[in-house]
């Protein structure tokens, strides 16, 4: 089985927002429609302090709360464990946005339907496992791949760097963070 996942190394992130811009271009999003949002956290104690940028996006949870609350079946866990929104089924009730503990879903102002990170299915379906945000990142802070394959680049990096989901076991997230 293929379970797509991602690693985001915030120690490499410079906060340039290139991933968000690339994502908006790739997915042809509205100007105010972001699949990636940024949280900033201060770390350390004075005088040794730093500002950490944490890009947040759909965590593609195996036990996706959005899919369990979606009344129409628009939000679902699809092939490769990628959480997707069937735009033709979404009524825009925003229940998934309330149920998502990570607050990473957005409403498309034109259609009224809800959307979010698609793990660039255009790439994965062709066999080339990559995401636009991964390609765009100038510091290689992002790695995408198959979590079920222990030899994949992402699986090895998660073990090496002790990467963890952003909020512990809140959900079974497939995006791992190095912090």
């Amino acid at each position: 089985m293929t379970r797509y996942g991602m690693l985001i190394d915030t120690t490499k992130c410079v906060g340039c927002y290139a991933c968000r811009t690339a994502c908006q271009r790739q997915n042809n999003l509205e100007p105010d429609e972001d699949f990636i949002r940024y949280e900033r956290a201060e770390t350390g104690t004075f005088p040794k302090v730093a500002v950490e940028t944490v890009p947040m996006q759909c965590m593609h949870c195996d036990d996706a709360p959005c899919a369990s609350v979606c009344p129409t079946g628009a939000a679902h866990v699809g092939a490769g464990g990628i959480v997707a929104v069937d735009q033709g089924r979404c009524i825009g009730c925003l229940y998934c946005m309330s149920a998502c503990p990570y607050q990473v879903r957005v409403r498309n102002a034109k259609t009224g339907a809800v959307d979010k990170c698609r793990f660039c299915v255009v790439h994965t379906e062709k066999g080339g496992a990559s995401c636009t945000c991964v390609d765009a990142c100038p510091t290689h802070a992002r790695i995408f791949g198959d979590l079920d394959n222990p030899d994949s680049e992402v699986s090895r990096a998660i073990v090496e760097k002790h990467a963890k989901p952003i909020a512990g076991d809140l959900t079974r997230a497939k995006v791992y963070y190095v912090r």
Partner: protein
Amino acid sequence: MTYEPIWGTIIAWYLFLAGLGGGAFVTAVFIRFKHPGCTRLMRIGRIIAPAVVVIGLCLLMFDAAAGFAHPLRFALLLTNFGSVMTWGVVFLAVFVVVALIVLVLDLLKKAVPEWLDIVGMVMGLCVAVYTGCLLGVCQGFPLWNTALLPILFLVSAVSTGMAAVLLAGVFAAPAEFNEVVVLKKFHFWLPVVELVLVAALLFVTSANPSPAGWESVAALLMGNWAVCFWLLFVVMGLVLPTVLECWMLWIASHELETSRTGQMVSALSDAGVLIGGFVLRLMIVSAALPITIVQPWML
């Protein structure tokens, strides 16, 4: 990053109206069994119940923009029975149909079968509880994610339903209004129970491991929502009705209680309950903060 509430005033209105409608039907059934002679008041409840729920559902469909643009998608609402919203659709559908049949039978002066009234009452209670469960299953919001919320919404729904029927009764059926003493005494206790439930909800929420719990409670008690919470909800919605009804039911003379002045005092108390009921939904929907966005209540 700042947090914008996902659901707004329209959803607060819907939650309020759905609860009120369910509560109004419960009130009509209560009158049927406890005050069978008060047919006008009963009919008021039977008119309010489907009317406000249908208004609420129209608001809901309007708010669901993608479905509003493609109405056929609403048929898909019955596909995921793991979703509280799907169950809500079932309860609402059965409730509206039953409430409309009961209303038509009443208006045609035909006998309403007892079982039909009871089915409608159970569905009305289900609608009230579901509005709480709808928010309750969202684990990202400490203010919602507690089993107290459905109970609070249930009590508030029955309270606002009874207040709406009694308020309309003061003007449309003043003679019957004086007769429904058992209903009034039952209704008296609901704001008292609500006060206890709200206090419990805030204590439990503020102790949530995530700071979002305390931030939400602080926003209500001393932040942006403080005036709304203390003045409109606690004073007008809970304390005033309790004090006024306590006076009317147990302290005032029978002459004062049944006089026009006494009725107006009760009307004021019922209007307070309705305002409090709406403000409660609005605050619960708007003041809840999610656990993964850090936003202090002072900002």
